[in-house]
């Protein structure tokens, strides 16, 4: 349904200059009689600007402009980040991403502790969130009695509506004491052999940050998994049941295996969210630029170093180094999100769960 193509020769209009609207192309399918057209051209063919600057074209132009703004914004984000990080890029080059020294006083910047912190906290989050999120999705779509379905789905979505800062607040005052007194000593006692749980249990640190992140990404993973499971054709389930499968066997054989790529996509999308999450992590991770083997030790993430240090950065090189961290964070999340989008798309493509036409 594109715009009706403009015709150079239009039918004579009863009154001439009533509104700009009247110079509008005639309804589709009006027979073009060349004789009338010739006569009208001679007398009052609208001048060229009236056929170009119609309200229809104007409206279309305005909407296109809005759409181009979306492109423009992403362009601005990229150019702004690149421009403002160029100083650090010229000073350190690729060494920025292999150096582990973050010392603003002596002006040496290496981003490895932050890359490590972001990666580890996000991985902890995935390890905790994935089983929970998939269990909720499977339970809601396949197992639970109908009247419970909507309330459970709704309450997981409610988790997504809570702002990051409130997760942070809750984690600081509830999760941190809980971890310090119960969870971390327990981990040290029973999982200490792995070497991942050593050192004093502060409560704040990678493990706590990962746990908060996990609660925050459960709704995303589980709602997309639900979407993916709901497009698995019903006859697949029926076929499995008809062969005598129990419900769990049906879910394993017919549902989960069909939706595998989509579920992986949902997990990667959750990862994308975890990588960029800022405030809640900043409040509980301890903000120490170090690479510790122990998960109980405090760390630092890319997002939280920006949040803590950017506003107070005194010189251009420092600020530019933080911008470069931001650029790296931007690129990583974008790549992760695109990959995830592709994977979800391979499953939902034929019958989109949400109504994207085309």
């Amino acid at each position, binding site marked *: 349904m594109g715009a009706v193509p403009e015709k150079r020769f239009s039918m004579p209009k009863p009154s001439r200059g009533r509104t700009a609207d009247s110079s509008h192309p005639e309804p*589709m399918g009006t027979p073009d009689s060349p004789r009338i057209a010739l006569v009208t051209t001679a007398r009052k063919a609208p001048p060229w600007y009236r056929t170009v600057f119609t309200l229809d074209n104007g409206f279309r132009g305005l909407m*296109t402009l809005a759409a181009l703004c979306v492109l423009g914004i992403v362009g601005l*984000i990229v150019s702004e980040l690149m421009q403002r990080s160029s100083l650090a890029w010229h000073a350190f080059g690729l060494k920025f991403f292999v150096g582990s020294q973050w010392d603003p006083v002596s002006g040496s910047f290496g981003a490895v502790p932050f890359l490590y912190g972001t990666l580890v906290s996000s991985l902890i989050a995935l390890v905790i969130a994935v089983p929970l999120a998939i269990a909720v999705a499977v*339970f809601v779509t396949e197992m639970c009695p109908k009247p419970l379905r909507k309330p459970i789905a709704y309450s997981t979505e409610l988790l997504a509506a809570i702002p990051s800062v*409130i997760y942070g*607040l809750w984690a600081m005052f509830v999760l941190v004491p809980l971890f310090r007194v119960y969870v971390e000593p327990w981990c040290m006692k029973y999982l200490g052999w792995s070497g991942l749980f050593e050192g004093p249990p502060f409560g704040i640190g990678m493990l706590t940050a990962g746990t908060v992140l996990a609660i925050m990404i459960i709704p995303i993973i589980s709602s997309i998994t639900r979407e993916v499971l709901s497009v698995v054709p019903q006859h697949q389930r029926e076929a499995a049941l008809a062969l005598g499968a129990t419900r*769990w066997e049906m879910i394993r054989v017919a549902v989960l295996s069909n939706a595998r790529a989509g579920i992986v996509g949902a997990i990667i999308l959750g990862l994308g969210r975890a990588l960029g999450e800022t405030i809640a992590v900043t409040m509980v991770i301890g903000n120490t630029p170090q690479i510790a083997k122990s998960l109980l030790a405090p760390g630092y993430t890319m997002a939280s170093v920006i949040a803590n240090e950017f506003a107070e950065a005194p010189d251009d090189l420092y600020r530019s180094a933080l911008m470069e961290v931001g650029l790296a964070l931007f690129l990583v999340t974008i790549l992760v999100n695109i990959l995830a989008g592709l994977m979800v798309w391979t499953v939902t493509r034929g019958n989109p769960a949400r109504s994207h036409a085309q």
Partner: protein
Amino acid sequence: MPSKFVQLRRQVTDRFFTGLAAGLSVVVIGALVAIFAYLVLRGAGSLNWAFFTQIQKPVGESGGGMANGIVGSIMILVIASCMGVPLGIGAGVYLAEFGRGRLGRLVRFTADVLNGVPSIVIGMVAWGLVVVRQKHFSAFAGGVALAIMMIPTVTRATEEMLLLVPQSVREAAFGLGIPQWRTTLSITLPSARAGILTGVMLAFARIAGETAPLLFTAFGNQFWNLSPGQPIAAMPLQIYTYALSPYDEWHRQAWAGALVLVLLIVGTTTLVRFVFLRRMLGGAR
């Protein structure tokens, strides 16, 4: 014929996984309940009239409130909506009515990319675009950052809702000789109104609690400010600073603020879900 043992094993496996899924679901809902319970428990006690009418008292004195943060948040949100909503709806109309070609696909993809950009990065960009040029932090810069976050949500919601309007309605309008701009403005958009409003309010709820993009744009302010050109307080920022402070009194304020913020956001989301969305999709399904 399968042996009794195999039968039993399959039965037990089935029960085990059903129980596991149910148990893990309970854990997730338990986390939700725990968060809300703490918010109400600790927030409700510190919530009083002063919270809504006074600004922060100096350290050591009790009392005071977040009035300046509430007003600041409203101001930033209004600025953001004024920029983000028209742009988002415009781009959504473009995608639904004209966006069949390559440009449409590119814009759709870009909107999805923009949706995934970490909020802290958007804050940095808004800092570069506005704060550097103005040479100081301002409410306007905060508004710009939040507007950027709003646009992709509004765009995709508008597009989806416009596509739910049956094609025959548009064809009927064209058949009557109504030009396209008139069809869109007077027929298609009004029939999708409830759905678009839903999208806008969800976007609003999402940015209302954002802290990271405001850290170096709106920056926060201990005092009253009503000028969009000056640093301004905002509720999420105040909750953040109060939570990190060592004072019990400020912690109480943070919990009260958190409760108000969550009630606002969850209230909006719930309202939208049960009132508008049902009205919109009721006819379409």
